[in-house]
């Protein structure tokens, strides 16, 4: 299935600020993702990469936000958005099989209060086959290896049949074979005209896997095509001096209005 290139950007955020309890995690980020292709979000630990995805999806409270997905609000665009959470964010001991997890990706097509029809279950099975996991359909998820678990999550995202995928560290903790398999799937998605925005923290493979990049460290440092943006100078700005003074300033400001932290 292929769709025509989209005229509007897949994702636009403006003045996005997120602060949990102390220093800001994201400060006034404005960014427009390209209409299609593979986009990496790169930055040091604690730079707010995952938070950016979560804020777009309304999973974290934010101070200010203007997010447009295909020019629409999140609620309007929901059916066109796919999400792949971090593997560590769920309890893999949960009593479920690989197929049952992948079938969750079909829930939006089924709707509330209806059991999953057989046809949808077969679509889920097909998605599992796409990531090379067909034979593990009835395996309990806790008995899969890390890479296999990651492929199950990827299959669930594929089952959503979205136009824009937000992926949180799809390559974290996977073996080389899984990494190649995931890259292949991502390339196919891009070839079909879809957009994939993935948090990535392996600087060595980023230029190889992705076409565009957003360099993020609390604020947007640079964004654009990989070749022109992924430069030593920009990386130094991203990984180098954090806004230590600014962070301390905000922490002090907030400490002044809240009870002091525990001893």
């Amino acid at each position, binding site marked *: 299935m292929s769709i025509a290139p989209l005229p509007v950007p897949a994702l636009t955020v403006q*003045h996005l600020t997120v602060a949990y309890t102390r220093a800001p995690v994201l*400060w*006034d980020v404005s960014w427009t993702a390209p209409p299609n292709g593979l986009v990496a979000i790169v930055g040091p630990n604690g730079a707010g990469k995952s938070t950016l995805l979560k804020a777009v999806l309304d999973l974290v409270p934010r101070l200010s936000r203007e997010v447009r997905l295909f020019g629409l609000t999140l609620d309007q665009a929901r059916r066109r958005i796919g999400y792949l959470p971090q593997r560590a964010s769920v309890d893999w*001991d949960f009593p479920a099989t690989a197929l049952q997890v992948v079938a969750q990706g079909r829930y939006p097509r089924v709707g509330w209060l209806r059991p999953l029809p057989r046809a949808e279950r077969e679509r889920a099975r097909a998605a599992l086959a796409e990531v090379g996991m067909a034979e593990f359909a009835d395996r309990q998820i806790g008995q899969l290896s890390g890479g296999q678990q990651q492929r199950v999550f990827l299959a669930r995202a594929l089952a959503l049949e979205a136009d824009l995928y937000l992926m949180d560290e799809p390559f974290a903790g996977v073996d080389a074979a899984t990494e190649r398999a995931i890259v292949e799937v991502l390339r196919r998605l891009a070839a079909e005209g879809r957009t994939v925005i993935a948090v990535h923290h392996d600087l060595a493979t980023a230029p190889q896997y992705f076409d565009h990049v957003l360099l993020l460290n609390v*604020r947007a440092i640079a964004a654009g095509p990989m070749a022109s943006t992924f430069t030593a100078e920009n990386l130094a700005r991203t990984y180098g001096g954090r*806004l230590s*003074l*600014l962070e*301390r*300033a*905000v922490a*002090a*400001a907030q400490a*002044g*209005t*809240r*009870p*002091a932290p*525990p*001893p």
Partner: protein
Amino acid sequence: MTVADALLFSAGYNAAVVALGCAAFGLAAGALGCFVLLRGRALIADAAAHATLPGVAGAFILAALIGWDVRALPLLLAGAGATAALGVVLVNALAGGGRIRDDAAMALVLSIGFGIGVVLMSVVQSLPVGGQAGLKGFILGQAAGMSAADAQLVGALAVLALLLVGVLFRPLAALCFDRGFAAAVGLPVRALDLALLGLMLAVTVAGLRAVGLILVVALMVIPAATARLLTERLEAMVPIAGGVGAVSAWVGAALSATLPDLPTGATITLVACALFLAALLFAPRRGALAFAARQAMLSLTVARDHALRAAFEAAERAPGATHRWVELGRGAGWSRWQRAVLPRWLAAAGWVRAEGERIALTDAGLALARDLTRRHRLWEHYMQAAGGLGPWAAHRAADEVEHTLPPEVAREAEAWLRRNDPARLPAEGALPAPGEAPTAPR
């Protein structure tokens, strides 16, 4: 007997000893509770406390079968301690398999342990000996039925626990503060954890008779939480929690001695809750009222700064200008009470003076306003240069931080600008230029 009698130890020797015993228990529970709380063991203490019931009832049955005195408190407490320790072991065993998490393991041990105790209690009812009625006091506490000897035993246990807490204060503090660090500097953390667990069991068992097994955890958690509101130093927290625990236990026991229908555990817990609520409201730094007052003061200061800055910037354009409050507050979103308080405060502080319907800055007000404006513009420039923010975001961000920052941070920001972007800094003594388009949408 009145409450006053009971409080002042003038209700007879027995009542006085019982009150003292309860107070000693409260002191030990409160003090130890600080460590239990900081080590995150509050709920395992609760599970262990519920698991004492089979021990108490089992010891009673055993004593009845072999003909000992079924009312002997040491025996009953020994049984309680044994099953409580077994409960803790079982929590660890259940959670150790990985399939059942420790939260579920605690809930299981708590409820099933209590259930076994309940069944044994119904066996106790059928035994042909006296004294069954007293056992119910172990569930919800019944200080009224305690003898002086009972109270002395409880007091002795409590004092012993307290002494150990005193001796182990430093290592326990290190354990609760950072277990990894404590291990790294060579403290025997496993032994210390066990010691804390043992002390917790001893205090739990000591409290059974007076407070009851269901609410004994309250006297470990609530005084410690109260002390936490009042201080941040462990050296102060432990005595405060002990004091709160002692007062709660003493007052609660006296109340229930005069109103025998009330289970002692419930009254003691409610007294502790009342102290906790008082601290929650009135604590000088962390209390809700102090918090609200700080917030109100902060928002008022922000409003004042806005007003003075607006007046100063108007005066910059037209020296000697007078102002109207409506103009100064334009776009600042002042609330009704801010509009009411602000003019009085500024006039009383001597920053503005009335000129007919309008107001003007006094010399003092002008100096303060100049200072505030300088600080705001400095922050705007810093946010733009170092933070990479757009003009309106810089203005807003500067607004957020400038009111609460200590002056040395502002000096640091100035130094940073001097090093990295000196063009933004004005000549010595002059004001920085206004930020670019500070009136953009907010």
